[in-house]
């Protein structure tokens, strides 16, 4: 082994120096014996002992021996190298030798402190020293590499620690990035009213610092942002990605005028007030928040809106109705629905299926509320198109699909012309749905509105006869076919052709177009869908005396809306389940006289997932009747145009259209609605119309019709909402006309009154938090609100990072014995802090939930601390803030205040004095951990109180103390995501889960990762004083690095001895830092020492021993191994 060319200092003369470390080592290890042993080791020319080798005289010993040539290599047996290696290397250097002719034996941490038996300790020490001696003989002179430190600093977390550190560094003229995940800086301290022990106002001392941060030229403040990733930029600096979460408010333009919050209809519990107060969906945690910018909490599209195929923003208008803002509600509705008064009546409202409220009791009556608004403004107008375009587009069919398509196209400036075969527009709406569910004037009004905005409708114009599709294609830029499905399916039983046997639609169409007519006394309706019910209820209104619905499955399988079934039964329709028609009896003259039926039973589930009905052999029976209405579904009327069109068909006799674009095989011709899907609900037809409109728009603009359309149409939202604690409050039924009048075609339901509507709307759970009503946008003068805002990733490079991510309070619910969450007047300390805060929810008043003043208050210490069931550590600040709270509560309520403590821990300047003062103020101190807080009264004076049971350990009796209010002094815990964060920053967590410092005493703010420092409660529970001190320390650490401008790296990089390298490339993929490349013509691996961080993985892997690591060469380690084994 010859490279690098060994600069040797001649034959090794090794000095061994054994440190007593006072008694730390000497008391266990027999120093004299060790020295005697050391002298016998190879090349040892000097073996000395000294009380404290790290002291100046200690180091002087070494230097002297070096200078005077007695030795040229050094072994010190003392503490851990992590402690003093640097010290002794320096000593060696000052003695005139290369500092790396030094090796340390750790005989304190690894020997004297951990070994019970003195003799064994001595033996172990010998072994380690022997190893060090053998090793150092093979040390080589090395040079330290210098790497520049990037002058920018990242501070994570802008509580008091982060603020302090950032200010210090910035004041020193260095650039600081301050990242805070919340919308404001200030952390927990901003929540407090007074500070312990000085009782000065937290706001008064904090807010000035906060504003300084905001205006400081050297601080780049990033609130509502989180560190996404930290990667090595080079050997020493960091490349940090920061996620700027979308706050939907432009930080540069928002003036913090708060007008938006005034108009915002959504109120939620305020996190800043610990849930004791409310805030709006667009909010600023508190008035002095920094930056003074608002933020919108948006959880995402609410389930109702997601489930709706046209994504009608239900939460939006519902929230506004709850606020009595009806006009605004209308605007929200019209944003995405031109037929609201129709949908409000007959839409099957999939929105309610996903309504979160259903988890509690019942979904909201979303359509009912929509209808309420449209009823309230009978003469509302549809928005006029903003642009105009020349193209005309032909739309075949004026059903919901056609109308929606026309509307959407019109809004894009086109000129749609609708061709309708029937005398009235509206398609199935007009002919298929009876007036008592959907009054004709409602349909007419909607269609007139569409006409008003310039949509042309040609009734009595059947395409295929009056005009041919070919003509349309010539005359119009594009064609949309939405002719619905109007042709009856046949029962396919004998006698179907007899007089007075009707198809459901046929029957309804006749009634709807020509008015009611006499049908007969006994009417049978076959089928179980909504149209069966419509037919039955219409038949009743046509004077039938007995109407029976015959269905082959049972009620459970009926596809019809249960509410409708109910209504039909109320009105007198009978149900006959598990019955299927076999033949229709009668003759030309009499017409139908009876229906022969078969009894059915339910079998295995069929394709639709519902159990398939199976006939029961010879179970025939006969129902007499005067008329039969068969409602078993329809198909599109292709006879009229389908056949001649040359448009591709499906085997179900519907048009074939592309799923994404609805384009047919004929370019420029689109089709949607029932004629493509088969009979379906109104909203899906509208969805088809809209989809087609989008396609047509793109088609005419020659834009890709398919791109990015996956999210059109209904979907389920992922996030779950916690509904626990929501009080049950069932849906408010919509008023209806009395049964007597249900023989006319008057609309059955009369709609909500204002009071009912508001009450119903208030049931909404605000799933999306922000309801997207956009009132704030309308009010904001600065035009700062932007709903389209997305998270952004910002990338920065820094040389040092300060973590000040703080703590989270212990969750008192975890100790049910203390009744938090069960008894309303049990508060956490932080809640109490908010109450004492003059700017807080109770403006500084200490109040019970009922608003009255407490007469007695108990403060329970050590909640979640010093408890092996939760956290075994002492949270350190609880005694202090409990004293503060005790004082404030007593001062403001004159209540008796009891402190229940295990041990009072108030070390610190002026702390004990404060305690003394509290004792004199007459606060009660009871030494005993509280066993439980209960409302179980044993004596009259305990009635209606919270009783605290605890042993007064100083008196030695068990006491029951009735109080009105309990304050739980909850402990401090690491942030929930502490582990995730520490991985991001390559540091470790200590046993309590807090970030681990490099050394508990000597390096409390450093970590094992160079250039990463920790300040404040993220390192362990501590009060504001200590936090500030640590923050200052971290700032100093960072400034040291910046000022020196470089760091010296341990020269432990790997190198490759080319002549030995076989070019096997094994090492290359293993290097995590891509420091190794391959030199093809030499066919050897090449090490880029500028990238090598010195882990040595490649060295351990190299089959030919070509890769070596400075300070850890194979021979050095072999020597060490032999050393520990072969002497003792």
């Amino acid at each position: 082994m010859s490279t690098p060319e060994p600069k040797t200092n001649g034959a090794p003369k090794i000095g061994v120096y054994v440190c007593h470390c006072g008694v730390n080592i000497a008391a266990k290890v027999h120093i004299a014996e060790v020295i005697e042993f050391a002298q016998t080791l190879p090349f040892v020319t000097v073996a000395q002992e000294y009380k404290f080798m790290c002291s100046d005289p200690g180091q002087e010993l070494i230097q002297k021996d070096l200078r005077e040539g007695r030795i040229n290599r050094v072994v010190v047996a003392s503490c851990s190298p992590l402690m003093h290696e640097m010290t002794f290397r320096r000593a060696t250097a000052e003695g005139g030798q290369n500092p790396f002719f030094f090796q340390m034996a750790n005989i304190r941490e690894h020997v004297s402190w951990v070994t019970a038996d003195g003799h064994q300790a001595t033996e172990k020490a010998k072994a380690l020293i022997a190893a060090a001696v053998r090793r150092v003989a093979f040390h080589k002179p090395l040079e330290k590499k210098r790497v520049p430190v990037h002058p920018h600093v990242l501070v994570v977390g802008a509580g008091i620690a982060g603020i302090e550190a950032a200010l210090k560094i910035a004041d020193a003229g260095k650039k600081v990035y301050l990242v805070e995940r919340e919308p404001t800086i200030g952390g927990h301290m901003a929540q407090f009213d007074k500070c312990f022990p000085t009782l000065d106002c937290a706001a008064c001392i904090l807010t000035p610092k906060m504003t300084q941060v905001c205006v400081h030229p050297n601080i780049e403040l990033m609130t509502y942002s989180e560190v996404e990733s930290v990667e090595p930029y080079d050997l020493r600096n960091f490349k940090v990605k920061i996620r700027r979460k979308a706050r939907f408010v432009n930080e540069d333009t928002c003036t913090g005028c708060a007008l938006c919050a005034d108009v915002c209809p959504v109120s939620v519990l305020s996190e800043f007030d610990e849930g004791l107060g409310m805030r709006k969906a667009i909010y600023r945690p508190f008035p002095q928040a920094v930056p003074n910018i608002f933020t919108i909490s948006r959880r995402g599209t609410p389930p109702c809106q997601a489930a709706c195929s046209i994504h009608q923003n239900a939460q939006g208008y519902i929230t506004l109705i709850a606020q009595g803002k009806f006009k605004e509600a209308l605007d929200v509705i019209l944003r995405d629905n031109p037929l609201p008064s129709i949908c409000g009546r007959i839409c099957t409202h999939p929105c309610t299926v996903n309504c979160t409220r259903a988890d509690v009791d019942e979904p909201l009556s979303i359509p009912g509320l929509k209808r309420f608004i449209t009823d309230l403004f009978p003469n509302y107008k549809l928005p006029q198109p903003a642009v105009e375009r020349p193209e005309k587009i032909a739309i075949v069919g004026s059903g919901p699909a056609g109308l929606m398509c026309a509307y959407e196209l019109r809004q894009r400036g086109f000129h749609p012309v609708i061709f309708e075969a029937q005398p009235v527009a509206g398609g199935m709406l007009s002919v298929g749905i009876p007036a008592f569910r959907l009054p004709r004037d409602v349909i007419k009004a909607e269609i007139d509105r569409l006409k008003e905005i310039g949509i042309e409708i040609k009734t009595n114009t059947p395409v295929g006869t009056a005009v041919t599709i070919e003509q349309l294609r010539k005359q119009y830029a594009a064609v949309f076919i939405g002719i619905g499905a109007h042709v009856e399916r046949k029962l396919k039983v004998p006698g179907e052709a007899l007089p007075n046997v009707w198809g459901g639609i046929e029957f309804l169409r006749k009634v709807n177009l020509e008015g009611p007519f006499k049908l007969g006394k006994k009417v049978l309706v076959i089928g179980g869908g909504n149209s069966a019910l419509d037919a039955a209820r219409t038949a009743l209104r046509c004077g039938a005396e007995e109407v029976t619905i015959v269905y082959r499955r049972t009620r459970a399988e009926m596809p019809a809306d249960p509410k409708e079934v109910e209504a039909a039964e109320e009105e007198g329709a009978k149900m006959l389940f598990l019955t299927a028609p076999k033949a229709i009896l009668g003759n030309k003259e009499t017409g139908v006289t009876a229906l022969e039926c078969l009894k059915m039973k339910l079998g295995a589930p069929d394709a639709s997932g519902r159990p398939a009905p199976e006939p029961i052999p010879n179970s025939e029976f006969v129902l007499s009747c005067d008329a039969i209405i068969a409602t078993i579904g329809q198909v599109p009327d292709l006879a009229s145009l389908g056949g001649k069109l040359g448009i591709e068909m499906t085997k179900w006799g519907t048009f074939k259209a592309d799923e994404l674009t609805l384009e047919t095989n004929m370019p420029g011709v689109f089709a949607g609605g029932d004629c493509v899907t088969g009979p379906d609900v109104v909203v899906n037809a509208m969805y088809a119309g809209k989809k087609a409109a989008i396609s047509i728009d793109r088609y005419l603009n020659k834009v890709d019709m398919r791109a990015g359309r996956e999210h059109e149409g209904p979907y389920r939202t992922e996030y779950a909402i916690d509904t626990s604690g929501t009080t049950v409050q069932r849906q408010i039924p919509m008023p209806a006309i009395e049964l007597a009048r249900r023989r006319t075609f008057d609309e059955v339901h009369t709609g909500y009154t204002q009071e009912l509507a508001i009450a119903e709307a208030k049931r909404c759970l605000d799933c999306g938090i922000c309801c997207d009503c956009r009132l704030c946008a309308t009010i904001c003068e600065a035009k700062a609100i932007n709903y389209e805002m997305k998270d952004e990733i910002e990338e920065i490079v820094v040389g040092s990072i300060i973590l000040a991510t703080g703590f989270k309070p212990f969750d008192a619910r975890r100790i049910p014995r203390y009744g938090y969450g069960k008894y309303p007047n049990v508060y956490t300390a932080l809640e109490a802090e908010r109450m004492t805060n003059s700017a807080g929810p109770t403006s500084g008043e200490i109040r019970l939930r009922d608003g009255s003043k407490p007469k007695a208050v108990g403060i329970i210490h050590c909640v979640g601390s010093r408890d092996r069931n939760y956290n075994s550590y002492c949270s350190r600040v609880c005694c202090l803030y409990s004293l503060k709270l005790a004082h404030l509560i007593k001062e403001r309520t004159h209540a008796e205040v009891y402190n229940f403590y295990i041990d009072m821990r108030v070390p610190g300047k002026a702390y004990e004095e404060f305690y003394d003062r509290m004792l004199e103020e007459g606060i009660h101190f009871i030494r005993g951990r509280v066993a439980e807080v209960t409302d179980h009264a044993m004596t009259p004076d305990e009635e209606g109180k919270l009783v605290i049971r605890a042993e007064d350990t100083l008196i030695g009796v068990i006491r029951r103390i009735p109080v009105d209010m309990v304050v739980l002094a909850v402990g401090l815990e690491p942030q929930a995501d502490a582990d995730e964060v520490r991985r991001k920053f390559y540091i470790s967590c200590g046993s309590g889960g807090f970030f681990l410092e490099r050394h508990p005493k000597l390096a409390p703010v450093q970590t094992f990762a160079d250039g990463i420092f920790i300040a404040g409660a993220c390192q362990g529970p501590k009060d504001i004083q200590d936090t500030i001190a640590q923050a200052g320390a971290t700032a100093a650490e960072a400034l040291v690095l910046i000022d020196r401008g470089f760091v010296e790296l341990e020269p432990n990089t790997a190198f490759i001895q080319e002549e030995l390298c076989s070019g096997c490339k094994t090492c290359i993929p293993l290097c995590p830092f891509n420091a190794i490349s391959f030199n093809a013509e030499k066919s050897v691996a090449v090490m880029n020492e500028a990238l090598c961080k010195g882990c040595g993985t490649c060295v351990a892997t190299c089959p030919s021993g070509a890769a070596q690591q400075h300070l850890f060469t194979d021979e050095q380690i072999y020597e060490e191994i032999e050393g520990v084994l072969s002497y003792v």
Partner: protein
Amino acid sequence: MKYLYYPGCSLKGTNRAYEESVLAAFQALAIEVEELEDWNCCGATAYMAVDEMKSFALAARNLALAERQSRADGPTLMAPCSGCYLVLSKTQHYLEEYSEVSRTIDGALQAARLSYSRKVHVRHPLDILINEVGVQTIAQKVRQPLAGLKVACYYGCQIVRPYAAFDDQVNPTTMDRLIRALGAETVDWPLKTRCCGGSLMGTLQEVGVPLSYILVKEAQKRGADVVATACPLCQFNLECYQDKMSQQFKERLQLPVAYFTQLLGLALGVPERRLGLHRLLIPLPYAAKGRGGAHVHA
């Protein structure tokens, strides 16, 4: 799923009503139950206090028998008496936790030509009803809802302590959920798991009576018509000593105390004699609550 059933001494004696109602109710729910053959005393807590190791040994024999009797790998042993339930589970835990215990016990078993491979699951009927059968299923099988009946569910100590195997240690809810599924109301009270005095009632009545009194009193105060228990000893202490309480505290106490399984049986429409309702010293206030003519004899 067939469950092995461990009655324990008490359910064969003073508290046979518990056994009767457990078996009847499970039958009504069509759940198969098979008594453990030649079971012996669980080792009872009173005993545990004097010779822990022996009570472990006794419990271990039952566990060993269970393993032998059941073909299933990892059979479930249902123990309705919370005393037995605790001793059996505690034995399980100690066999796991402490090598000296498992060494001694395995030795003892061997001497008795038995062996136990730690496969048995010891479970309380409440656990099985809530977590295996499920509230929904039970609700569906209710024939006569206990409408209007206000029940104070009393769990006692030993089914949730020290091992909260299937419910919260401080505020258990399984029995409440079950009772509500039967159509009855449950009163919210803070003494659900407070000690009734246990065996002290026998050894040191002047202490036992007040302890039970506190419970009966509070249940009454919170408007309960009946206290539902899951433990023979609790039932005995709370019911049978109400005269004593009345004497000692100078107030009339007449609060029925029934096994939760008796209420379950009633709701499922099991005839009252089969539920051992006639063994109650204080009759259920049922006829009063106007349920189909049913009347309970004391």
